[in-house]
């Protein structure tokens, strides 16, 4: 008796957004024999929720990007439409409110920006008269780079073509966000106002590639951002259901312990339960660090280059989140904004240094879900979270007997800082409170060192370079990666892109071997392949 088929074309390790999107993309081209093995007992990874005393609590740190409006669909929105995943999106009302307390002898900043390049530049102009047009130019540059990035990530191009068609992208590719922003000679306050989203890619501005920064700014300010009516769990469940309808097998509570390799080629996986499952391809959401140091069996199959790659690259941030249900409506509490970035400085190098410690953290992002999704709590309550994103190094010496105290320290510190910076009092209203840490992530999701953002988006690990080095970063035949650790990096939108990229790598490999036909199990697939080749 067995719970599995004798063989699968593709085994996907991890049923989160990347793994599910990979399955859907594979199915688009007719590959049907897919098994998804998920460690937890539900899909989505971090795109999930949990219930406390009847109230469902969102577990993600922030909203979904790259969806766009019905009229101006962005990349992920287009993909969901194509595969027939219909999610009840609710648009987040503003981009962010930014509150930076006054430095000694200086002035505080308190500004709220909404999506739309013109809108946000006017909002800045209202506080800093005369600067609006230049901010608009800056945002247009971000948008040009964003458009180029979307095209270039799927369409290979010669250098000359690139230069002709995507000059801004080419010219800014070698520079950091700070370097490009400096050329605009904004007043310091405007630079600060344009900086808060840096934390969504987890790298200080001084070493963050402008390309990545531009992508983020253009995506959020052009398309706005979205949350699901039934929490992120809705998105995860709908992706799962579609993948199952298309024929994928999904099994929960199955942690994959080993990836079986012979003569440089993958031939299966083994689960913690002991099931050995045969397959041609493995797509891993487990980090390369874990795969190349623990999971490949035998480990001798791991080439030296793979180890150097994971040792050279730096891991990005881990989350510390205080998630609360508060007594009272947002109005009663005095919360007017969905998203507030707050702190006493916007110097990202200083914040980065601070994020190497266990706090108190100087820079916080807070989210009041009710202001995007009023139905997220029963009447009279508010769902509210505060997050900091420190580095995993800060946690290596934490002892288990101190863990509960550490969680409470985080919560106390973060609530204090939030209350002081914003003047909003929340402490006396707590109905439910949970503190999630990198250990929480490691426990539920299994992510290496509790990392949610993959590798640092720094200039020496530039996404453009990752794309160019795709071939040389590929070490074991039949093994692809799909997660925040892949080329496009972190975030729920990029997770979908990363999953699709892994599927594409499998198509390319099958094409190369002339085996695509053998995998296609329905007639439409042949046409789909032709279309794919043509584009």
């Amino acid at each position, binding site marked *: 008796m067995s719970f599995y088929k004798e063989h699968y074309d593709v085994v996907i390790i991890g049923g989160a957004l990347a793994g599910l999107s990979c399955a859907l993309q594979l199915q688009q081209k007719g590959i049907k024999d897919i098994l998804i093995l998920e460690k937890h007992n539900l899909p989505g990874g971090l795109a999930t929720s949990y219930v406390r005393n009847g109230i469902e609590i969102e577990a993600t740190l922030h909203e979904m990007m790259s969806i766009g409006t019905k009229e101006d669909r962005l990349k992920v929105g287009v993909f969901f439409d194509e595969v027939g995943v219909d999610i009840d999106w609710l648009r987040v009302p503003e981009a962010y409110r930014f509150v930076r307390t006054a430095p000694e002898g200086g002035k505080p900043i308190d500004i709220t920006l909404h999506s739309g390049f013109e809108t946000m530049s006017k909002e800045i102009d209202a506080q800093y008269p005369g600067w609006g047009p230049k901010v608009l130019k800056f945002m247009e540059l971000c948008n040009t780079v964003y458009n180029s990035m979307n095209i270039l990530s799927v369409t290979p191009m010669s*250098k000359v073509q690139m230069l002709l068609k995507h000059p801004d992208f080419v010219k800014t590719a070698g520079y950091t966000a700070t370097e490009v922003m400096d050329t605009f000679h904004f007043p310091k306050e405007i630079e600060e106002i344009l900086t808060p989203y840096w934390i969504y890619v987890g790298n200080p501005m001084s070493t963050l590639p402008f390309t990545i920064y531009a992508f983020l700014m253009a995506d959020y300010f052009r398309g706005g951002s979205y949350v699901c009516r039934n929490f992120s769990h809705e998105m995860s*469940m709908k992706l799962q259901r579609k993948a199952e309808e298309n024929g994928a097998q999904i099994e929960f509570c199955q942690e994959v312990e080993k990836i079986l390799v012979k003569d440089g080629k993958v031939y299966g996986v083994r689960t913690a339960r002991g099931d050995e499952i045969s397959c041609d391809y493995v797509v891993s959401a487990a980090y390369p660090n874990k795969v190349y140091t623990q999971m490949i069996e035998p480990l001798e199959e791991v080439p030296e280059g793979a180890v150097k790659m994971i040792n050279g690259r730096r891991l990005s941030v*881990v989350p510390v989140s205080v998630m609360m249900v508060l007594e009272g409506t947002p109005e009663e509490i005095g919360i007017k904004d969905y998203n507030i970035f707050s702190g006493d400085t916007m110097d990202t190098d200083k914040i980065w240094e601070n994020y190497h410690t266990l706090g108190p953290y100087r820079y916080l992002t807070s989210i009041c879900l009710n202001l995007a999704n009023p139905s997220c709590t029963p009447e009279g309550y508010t769902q509210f979270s505060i997050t900091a994103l420190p580095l995993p190094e800060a946690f290596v010496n934490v002892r288990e007997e101190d863990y509960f105290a550490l969680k409470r320290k985080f919560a106390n510190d973060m609530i204090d800082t939030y209350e002081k910076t914003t003047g909003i009092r929340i402490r006396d209203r707590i109905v439910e409170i949970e503190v999630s840490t990198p250990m929480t992530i490691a426990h539920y999701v299994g992510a290496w060192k509790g990392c949610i953002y993959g590798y640092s988006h720094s200039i020496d690990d530039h996404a453009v370079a990752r794309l160019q080095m795709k071939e040389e970063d590929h070490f074991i035949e039949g093994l692809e990666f799909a997660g925040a650790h892949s080329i496009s990096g972190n975030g729920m939108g990029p997770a979908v892109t990363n999953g699709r990229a892994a599927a594409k790598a499998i198509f390319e490999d099958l094409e190369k071997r002339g085996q695509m036909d053998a995998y296609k199990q329905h007639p439409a697939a042949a046409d789909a392949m032709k279309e794919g080749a043509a584009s």
Partner: protein
Amino acid sequence: MSIRVKGFLKDVGGASRVTKMRREMIQSASAAPQPGDPIRALADALHPGKQEFTVTKITPASPTSRTFRLEPVNGHIPPFQAGQYINFYLTIGQSTLTRAYSLSSAPYEALGDKPFVEITIRRNVSYFVPDYFFDQVKEGDVLTAAMPFGQFYYEPLRDAKNVVALAGGSGITPFVSMAKEIAAGCLDCDLTILYGSVKSDDIVCGEQLAAAERACIERNAGLIAAGRKSGGQVRVIHIMSDDPDWTGEKGFVTRELIEKYSGAAGGEKSDTTYMFCGPLAMFRAVSRSMEEMGITPRRFRHDVMAQPGNVKQIPGFPEDQIGKTYQLTVVRGIQKDVIPARADEPVAVALERAAIAIDTHCRGGECGFCRSQLLAGDIFVSPLGDGRRREDKEMGWFHACSAYPVSDLTVKIPII
């Protein structure tokens, strides 16, 4: 538009430059594998999953209850908070049954050189498993269990420092743990326990509670004598519902008694968190009292309650279903098994009877460990402690411990 900045205008080599930079960064890195992940190691220490415990001591906790002391075979117990529970995986006949018990020992006793935990079980409170503990489990036996679980604990970030516990019968156990932790100076809150029993013989852990009360008084006297601030205190008020010889409080845990003992030590009214653990009937009465007293949900916490064995106690249960048996098709991976399932027992029980493993924990519908997928048929989901996510409800996912078949069913459950 293009940037009209001189420096960038001519620089078309950025992409090549960053690629070279990345290649050099990787080439100069160490080739020695670094397989350690201290964060996952800590996560695993905090949540070790199933582990083995030796039963080292069995002592009576009342004429009808026993305390089982458990020491870890590997010497390690994950830290827990007073009020949390342990989940046993008991092999009884062909089946593996999962059952949760609140820990009655204190968290500090699980640390140190000779760590242990204790559970206290009263006989005949629910079917099957208590008998197993009373009749089968002996000192020296090794049991499999996982811990800690549950959110029923004092949370200083949220709860008032003055805590009034409302306990009935064997629902006293989480408060025994709390009382001992306070007495040891490891938890800083003031705990008043209103403990309802039928007669004095039924009091579970009475001696341990009295010892905690005494220890707090002595410690605080010492602290005050030394000019220091006194620590947390414990006081226990026993209430007998049917004991003519009892000289203390009598009757049920009513609003009058709750109000009488809600004040802080000084007697004046203060901000109080109420914590409830006990049988369903008592929960309903206490909930009414809370409502009458104007206590908001923020100040009234209750432990997870297992679904009642008698389905008639479940609001809305379709009584015409009682006694019926349906066919349950269980899908695990590509395998299908067909088993009988009674309409008046949760799906999880049908699986256990058929020796198909299902990982239940709270058995009250809340925790979601036994989350399963309904592929065909109809179920009745108990509204008591319904902890399903919204999208799960819409898509037909359910918690097997609190869902009852009302037709032939096909369900998919995790492979264990």
